[in-house]
């Protein structure tokens, strides 16, 4: 054994490797992406690893491999589980043979997501078990247990860390070498692997009988436990358990119960903890899941216990918990001293805001600018999508009118066209998002005869989540060089008649391409091709000559962070400038070279 200081996502990856995982698939999404990236550093004979095209594909790849008895791992962020929910809902009925663990990382806050959805609720909805680790160390052990429970009950299981588990670091003890699980192989049995209404009915009954058994089993699962005594109890789940422990270290006698497997709920353990208890405070993030479970349990057993939490306003109903917010809730509940608040900062000066912006030299800025210039004065709608380019909404670009979910921009541009046929409707989609869930939207536009211009912002990577490869990059996670899937050929194959590929950093050519596409009816596409600045070398630094008339048009129109003012004069921040040259093409007097 050796000690490794790893990120929570690394601990999850190493735990899966220690369990001998055979197939790993997933789609990048903060805060889950580093799990697959860590596994790629430990290539094993008999281990297949892939970034799938989207979460649904990842789920299905892993499901059939698990039918064959292989141990499989699927990773995604919480909203990815929505994409994968179609196969998962059915898979919950069919079940698996080899252990199958689905990691869906929740993002309370949300810090970098669209929703504050709770994967524990998803597990309850799917009727499958879910594990909820409270630290990276626990995640490492728990994911190994998750494989065991999956095999014991022949069911896929969910594993839901949150951002503060995924991105926290801790030391764990791992084996010097990993091996892979041996499995039987796929055994044909259509009565088991082909879902039909009759099978669903039979398995639904089986599942409802099985889940209370799992709940009983979970009641003696070590991470579900309580300490302390007295008439007041604190129930906590996930990282909130760690925050509660942090505050309660000065009050070791207070009754504290960790719920590490929220579904099926470990009722026997909870009942044991509730013995002699008069009041309970639930500390959890996202939904009031544990709180609702306890209310049900207390009702069913006609116990006289008051339950406080999100539903009673004793804990915040939205947003992320912190050591501070949990300490505050606990001191209120227990009547104990509030945590030391530190210095009095009531006289703090106003702080500068640092909103996220597109990087200096980002080709997306040039693409947005070209469309903006080309469509100036014309009624247009700009439907955005998920990725770095969502930041195109910020001033001064102001080029994202809608953003909903992965791939939605393409289809939403069509909806706007049908209600306002006079307007020009644009959809902006990144290359990775195009493959993930953009393609079907293009087919929809063609089939239904919509008028729209698709702008593919092709920067040759999945930038937002940390530069993962995708089908258009010609590399995969097995370390192989593969044929690049051409976006242009894909669109042409679908039947898009007008496809223009331009370099967005050539402003005139880009503006002309947009005008040409906008003027034609039907479905048109522009592929703005220029690599992400984080994966390419800067081409040089721009210089501002004395010809500059200080009109600041470059700053006002691009908002590039490399354009700054020093003593009122426009200057280039050479530590940021990549030499993209967009500003030099905007300057009315040719002062930037």
């Amino acid at each position, binding site marked *: 054994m050796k*000690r490794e*200081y790893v990120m929570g996502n690394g601990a999850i990856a190493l735990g899966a490797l220690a369990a001998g995982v055979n197939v790993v698939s997933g789609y990048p999404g*903060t*805060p889950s992406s580093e799990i697959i990236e860590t596994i790629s550093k430990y290539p094993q004979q008999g281990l297949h690893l892939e970034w799938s095209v989207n979460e649904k594909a990842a789920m299905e790849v892993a499901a059939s491999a698990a039918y064959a008895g292989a141990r499989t791992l699927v990773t995604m962020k919480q909203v990815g589980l929505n994409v994968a929910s179609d196969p998962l809902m059915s898979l919950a009925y069919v079940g698996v043979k080899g252990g199958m663990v689905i990691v869906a990382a929740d993002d309370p806050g949300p*810090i*970098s997501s669209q929703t504050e959805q709770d994967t524990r609720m998803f597990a309850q909805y799917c009727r499958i078990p879910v594990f909820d680790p409270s*630290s990276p160390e626990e995640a490492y052990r728990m994911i190994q247990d998750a494989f065991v429970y999956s095999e014991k009950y022949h069911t896929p299981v969910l594993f839901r860390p949150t951002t*503060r*588990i995924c*991105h*926290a*670091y*801790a*030391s764990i003890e791992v084996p010097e070498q990993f091996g892979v699980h041996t499995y039987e192989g796929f055994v044909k049995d259509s009565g088991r692997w082909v879902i039909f209404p009759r099978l669903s009915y039979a398995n639904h009954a089986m599942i409802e009988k099985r889940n209370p058994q799992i709940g009983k089993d979970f009641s003696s699962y070590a991470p579900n436990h309580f300490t302390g005594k007295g008439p007041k109890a604190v129930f906590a789940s996930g*990282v909130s358990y*760690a*925050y509660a*422990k*942090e*505050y309660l*270290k000065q009050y070791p006698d207070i009754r504290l119960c960790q719920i590490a497997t929220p579904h099926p709920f470990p009722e026997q353990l909870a009942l044991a903890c509730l013995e002699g208890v008069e009041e309970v405070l639930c500390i959890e993030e996202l939904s009031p899941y544990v709180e609702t479970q306890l209310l049900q349990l207390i009702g069913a057993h006609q116990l006289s216990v008051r339950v406080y939490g999100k539903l009673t306003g004793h804990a915040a109903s939205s947003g992320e918990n*912190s*050591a*501070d917010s949990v*300490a505050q809730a606990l001191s209120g509940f227990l009547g104990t001293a509030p*945590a*030391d*608040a*530190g*210095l009095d*900062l009531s006289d*703090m*000066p106003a*702080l*500068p*805001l*640092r*909103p*996220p*912006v*597109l*990087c200096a030299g980002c080709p997306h800025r040039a693409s947005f600018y070209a469309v903006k210039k080309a469509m100036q004065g014309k009624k247009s709608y700009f439907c955005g999508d998920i990725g*770095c380019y969502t*930041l195109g909404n910020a*001033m*001064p670009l102001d080029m994202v009118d809608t953003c909903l979910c992965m791939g939605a921009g393409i289809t939403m541009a069509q909806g706007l066209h049908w209600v306002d046929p006079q307007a020009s409707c644009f959809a902006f989609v990144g290359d990775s998002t195009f493959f993930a869930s953009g393609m079907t939207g293009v087919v929809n536009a063609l089939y239904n005869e919509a008028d729209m211009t698709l702008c593919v912002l092709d920067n040759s990577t999945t930038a*937002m989540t940390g530069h993962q490869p995708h089908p258009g990059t010609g590399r995969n996670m097995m370390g192989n060089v593969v044929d690049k899937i051409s976006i242009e050929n894909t669109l042409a194959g679908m039947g898009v008649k007008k496809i223009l590929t331009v370099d967005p950093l050539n402003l005139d050519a880009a503006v002309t391409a947009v005008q040409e596409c906008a003027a034609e009816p039907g479905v048109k596409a522009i592929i703005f091709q220029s690599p992400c600045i984080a994966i390419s070398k800067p081409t040089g630094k721009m210089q501002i000559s004395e010809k500059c008339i200080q009109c600041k048009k470059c*700053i*006002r129109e691009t*908002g590039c*962070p490399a*354009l*700054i*003012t020093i003593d009122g004069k426009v200057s280039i921040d050479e*530590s940021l400038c990549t030499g993209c040259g967009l500003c030099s093409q905007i300057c009315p007097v040719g002062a930037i070279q």
Partner: protein
Amino acid sequence: MNKDILICGVGGQGTVLASKLIASAATSCGETVHSAETIGMAQRGGSVTSHVRIGREAFSPLIPSGSADLVLAFEPAEAVRNLRYLKTDGMVLCSSVPVKPTTESLSDTGYDGTEMLAYLQGKCRCLIIDAQSLCAPFGSSQYFNVAILGAAVGAGVLGLDAESMLQEMERKIPAKFIENNIAAFRAGMQIGEAYGIK
């Protein structure tokens, strides 16, 4: 040892390497360490923090308010933004060089860091480090991350010695950059030592 160290700055300043060096040096010394980073959208030109917690008594990944023994700030406003984490008798080491928000050229707020530095000095025990002159010999402000670690070691507030920090640097920093990094670390140490003597 129980020690909570908060590192803060602006995305791209090298705060992550600083936190990794502290965490691995402490781990090598047999300490239990937990840390956490801000990752994702917040990284792009935004405020970033790393929480490093040394000792068995740290359960949560993030430092509770009023608990940090030490704040290592790479930027004056970021020091103030994170001051709530500092213990009343804790210490702040802070770069004197302001980083203007990337949106500053669009909407000029006149931010130059001076108000922040004055606030820090009136509020807590702090050592303001002139990062510009400190890093000048090395040609890049990127060396400030090891310099501030050197200053914390020199002032005797990091709880780790120079030897163990230098060992981790040799391990974690690519060979072609190591010489400048060691020099920057030592330059920081001198500043810390001078402060410690005062």
